[in-house]
């Protein structure tokens, strides 16, 4: 009786329930990050990994394609994580980026963003081809996913890619994000990542915002703003280039 009315409330207020649910999920993730990894693995990366695990559980439980959102109690997660809110939040992050600050970063900073997007896209696309993908839409989506886990789904949605391919692109971007977070402090001495100039280039080349923020925080917290500055532009440049110029290039080659 109580359980029934509780689930009725959650289903009737799906989006609000999703806010509460994701809030708890993020909180647990940051606790895990602080307690078990001493902050080395960024809380946001753990939260996203838990999200993907729950999507797996949801998919197993229902046989649907919407992950956790296929379970009626969590339907709001589908709306909250849908394209509309996702794109809205992405656009909002651009507000933190100052045109002047990027101009000061110089040509190399801007260049590193474009090179970073193209480089990751090409590497991801080559891997996709190596694994037997032959259609331009899937190859581009996976290439875009190798850029970031945002550029992947944005590109995939724009090009009308299969949901499974979009999930792959998120997984590729997530692998990148986690590896950047964990790997940065270890490789930093070998790649000369110890000054603002290198941090700007690093942010532009890596592009994954949480990866860069976590990676630099674990290396030298003073470098965070420089890396984050260029990284802020990466997703925008990726969303601009991947579904347009880079996709057309792939289509011409395939």
């Amino acid at each position, binding site marked *: 009786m109580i359980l029934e009315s509780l689930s009725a409330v959650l289903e009737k207020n799906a989006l609000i329930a999703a806010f509460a649910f*994701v809030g708890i999920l*993020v909180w647990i993730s940051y606790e895990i990050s602080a307690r078990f990894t001493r902050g080395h693995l960024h809380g946001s990366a753990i939260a*996203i990994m*838990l*999200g993907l695990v729950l999507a*797996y559980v949801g*998919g*197993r439980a229902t046989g649907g394609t919407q*992950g*956790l*959102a296929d379970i009626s109690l*969590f339907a709001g997660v589908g709306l*909250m*994580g849908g394209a509309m809110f996702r*794109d*809205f939040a*992405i*656009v*909002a992050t*651009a*507000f*933190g980026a100052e*045109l002047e600050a990027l101009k000061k970063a110089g040509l*190399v900073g801007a260049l*590193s963003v474009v090179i970073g997007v193209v480089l*990751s896209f090409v*590497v*991801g696309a080559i*891997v996709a081809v190596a*694994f037997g993908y032959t259609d331009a839409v899937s190859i581009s989506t*996976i290439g875009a*996913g*190798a850029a970031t*886990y*945002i550029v992947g789904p944005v590109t995939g949605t*724009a090009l*009308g890619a299969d949901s*499974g391919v*979009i*999930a*792959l*692109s998120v*997984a*590729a971007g*997530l*692998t*990148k994000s986690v*590896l950047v977070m964990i*790997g940065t402090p270890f*490789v930093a001495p070998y*790649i*000369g990542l110890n000054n603002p*100039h290198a941090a700007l*280039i690093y942010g532009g*080349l890596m592009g994954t915002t949480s990866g860069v923020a976590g990676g630099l925080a674990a290396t030298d917290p003073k470098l965070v703003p420089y890396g984050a500055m260029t990284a802020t532009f990466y997703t*925008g*440049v990726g*969303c601009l280039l991947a*579904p*347009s110029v880079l996709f057309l290039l792939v289509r011409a080659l395939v």
Partner: protein
Amino acid sequence: MVIYGVALLSFCMLVGVFVGDLLGDLIGVQANVGGVGIAMLLLIILSNLSHSKFTLGVPTEKGIGFWSAMYIPIVVAMAAKQNVIAAISSGWMAIIAGVAAVVVSFAMIPVLSRIGSGDQHDS
């Protein structure tokens, strides 16, 4: 007013997505081309204009800042609604693509750093 910030953000996104749709039609791709990127550029330009021409009030900035701060939670929700089952059936590809992208990008940092330090603008 907070709503001014949210409305400005909405305006940028709608214009961006609209232009992205038009671009898609123009290129002949049945898709939205760079709509989100265009929206971001528009927001950057508008918010930078405002520093010299007029100032956004603090509540207005909060309206945008809130959604910027919701970015990670929304991405978490996005992860939770993905078709992971389908992804896992060819799992190694995603991991290899991600790892390869990181390795190549890391290798590129010293190369670009050198180009930068050759500049007369070096700090």
